């Protein structure tokens, strides 16, 4: 690990002005610093900031402080009751020890698990812009099938972010100059395009202070994660769903996908295609056709295209079976 300066932020307004890399749970940043994939010159420890509350908002939702741990969030009774898809997604991620450290803000900003990104002797446009992409034409079993570019085909590894995308969560931030803003998760992440090293719309020194959930969604909540081991492994494909039935037809369907793209993936046309329909396999296939119309395999990850279809259909069948 390279040497670095360390500072502890005493209050929210000074955190950005300390001009360093924020560290929260440290479970992603320190991992990458040990490998010298990340080489910050200064760390700003934000763990003493008062951002650990979960509070109700005026419109019937919840505001989750950026430092609420993944464990505490998954176990919070209001999350378990009203936002089950989020609790499920969190519990499907990492391990008990890691969830006790990982924070809401840090989880959103965790970086890809692409092995070329992790290996500093290899080319990687995300780690070293312009060096090329080792995964294109290389080992790419875990890589993206949607929204890729010829510069980068990495996926975003978070389970939590998939549920946040489905729930239309909003990220609250404070910039280094003290001003604050709100960014819907839908607009928070960027596709790789020509600049895969830029992953979100956040500015330098912009601190996530909270993530806000709108009021709860009625319906059946599901989070299905397909991976190489039954536990403690990243998703190859994951599907988050909230589906509400009415009179034997789908009244509302919200779907978000992990493991498919550089960001949690959501496609309004897929959801629209299901609304008003009967829950039949033929209709689920039509939704999968829309989702996967532009899907492109890279060789080793070709299996993700049929796997995404099967997982989506299985989740929809399960979520609509009582109706």
């Amino acid at each position: 690990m390279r040497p670095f300066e360390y500072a502890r932020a005493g209050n929210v307004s000074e955190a950005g002005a300390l001009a360093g890399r924020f560290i929260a749970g440290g479970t992603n940043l320190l991992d990458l610093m040990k490998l010298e994939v990340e080489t910050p010159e200064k760390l700003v420890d934000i763990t003493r900031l008062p951002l650990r509350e979960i509070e109700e908002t005026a419109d019937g939702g919840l505001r989750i402080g950026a430092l609420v741990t993944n464990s505490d969030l998954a176990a919070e009774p209001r999350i378990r009751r009203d936002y089950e898809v989020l609790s499920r997604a969190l519990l499907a991620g990492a391990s008990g020890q890691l969830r006790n450290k990982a924070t809401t803000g840090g989880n959103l900003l965790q970086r890809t698990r692409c092995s070329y990104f992790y290996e500093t002797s290899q080319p990687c446009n995300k780690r070293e812009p312009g060096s090329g992409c080792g995964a294109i034409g290389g080992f790419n079993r875990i890589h993206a099938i949607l929204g890729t570019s010829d510069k980068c085909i990495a996926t975003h590894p978070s389970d939590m972010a998939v549920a946040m995308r489905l729930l239309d969560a909003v990220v609250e931030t404070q910039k280094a100059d003290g001003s604050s803003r709100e960014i819907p998760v839908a607009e928070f992440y960027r596709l790789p395009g020509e600049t895969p090293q830029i992953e979100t719309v956040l500015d330098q020194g912009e601190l996530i202070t909270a993530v806000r959930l709108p009021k709860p969604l009625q319906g059946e909540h599901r989070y299905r994660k397909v991976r190489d081991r039954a536990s403690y492994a990243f998703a190859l494909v994951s599907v988050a769903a909230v589906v509400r039935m009415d009179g034997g037809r789908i009244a509302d369907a919200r779907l978000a996908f992990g493991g498919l793209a550089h960001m949690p993936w959501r496609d309004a046309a897929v959801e629209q295609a299901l609304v008003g329909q009967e829950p039949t396999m033929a209709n689920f296939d039509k939704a999968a056709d829309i989702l996967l119309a532009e899907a492109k395999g890279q060789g080793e990850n070709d299996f993700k295209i049929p796997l995404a279809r099967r997982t989506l259909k299985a989740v929809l069948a399960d979520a609509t079976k009582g109706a």
Partner: protein
Amino acid sequence: MRTSLLDACRDHLGLTGSKKGCDHGQCGACTMLVNGRRINSCLTLAVMHEGDEVTTIEGLGGPANLHPMQEAFLHHDGFQCGYCTPGQIVSAVGMLGEVSDGWPSHATDDVKDGASLSLDEIRERMSGNLCRCSAYPNIVDAIETASTKMKETA
């Protein structure tokens, strides 16, 4: 400044019970309790824990005063080489605390309900601790025994 909590305990305080398996949060050999919660001590900086209460395997019990979890691992032969064992034991103690606080897991049927401790639940909740010798069946038995015993004496 660069010292992890694990290295601080092992190299500076002489507490070598906690082990370094991977140094990347992947194996659980370095598990410690911080303010009662289990974490991977290799993925955090010692300087970030000023003022926190840290418990290592040494703090749970020693040869003269074994913790019920340590006794159960001995009784059930919950190890072979023993390298992962301190992490397994500390993690199991932390895990039982999470269950008694009602935390659900990925193996919980209905997350709205409180937590229970079936064998599947133990396996899922302990998945952050790997054992290269694959002593898993005996580890699960040991944890089940200890959890019953700790409930009786609680």
